[in-house]
């Protein structure tokens, strides 16, 4: 490997690595609601990876759509969990 890693590849490696770390933390955490911040980190990392993988203007929309979808989903999971506890 005579050439160094260039900036975009390094950024992708960092994003992918942090996403993998977050996935492992999600598996290891026992409390369901405390998994959600790690899921949030994973969404950030994957959204960043989407933008870095393909620098096309539609990529901004893809990254934003993925991130907002993931946020909406986490919000729904947390709200439903919160509503559910009171019923039991």
């Amino acid at each position: 490997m005579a050439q160094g890693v260039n900036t975009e590849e390094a950024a992708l490696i960092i994003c992918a690595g942090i996403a993998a770390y977050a996935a492992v933390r999600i598996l290891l955490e026992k409390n369901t609601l405390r998994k959600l911040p790690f899921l949030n980190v994973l969404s950030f990392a994957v959204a960043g990876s989407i933008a870095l993988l393909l620098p096309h203007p539609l990529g901004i929309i893809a990254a934003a759509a993925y991130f907002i979808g993931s946020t909406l989903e986490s919000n729904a999971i947390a709200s439903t969990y919160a509503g559910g506890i009171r019923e039991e």
Partner: protein
Amino acid sequence: MNLILAAVFTFIAIAGTLGTIIEKDPFAKLISLSVIAGGVIPFIVDRGYLDVAIAVAIIAPLSTIFLLFACRRDSS
């Protein structure tokens, strides 16, 4: 996407699948489904199918949300 990056995202998808199998709490299973989607979407983007990626990125969370609506209706 080189081999190492592909391996990392595959690992994320597999970790999500493991989570769906191992977890007992149904909400934790839903979180693991989200992890699977997070591992798979970069592959779709890497191939250039940005419109497919946008569609999956919107439909996957939407299905989870509808699932939660259905469960809430059942229990209340």
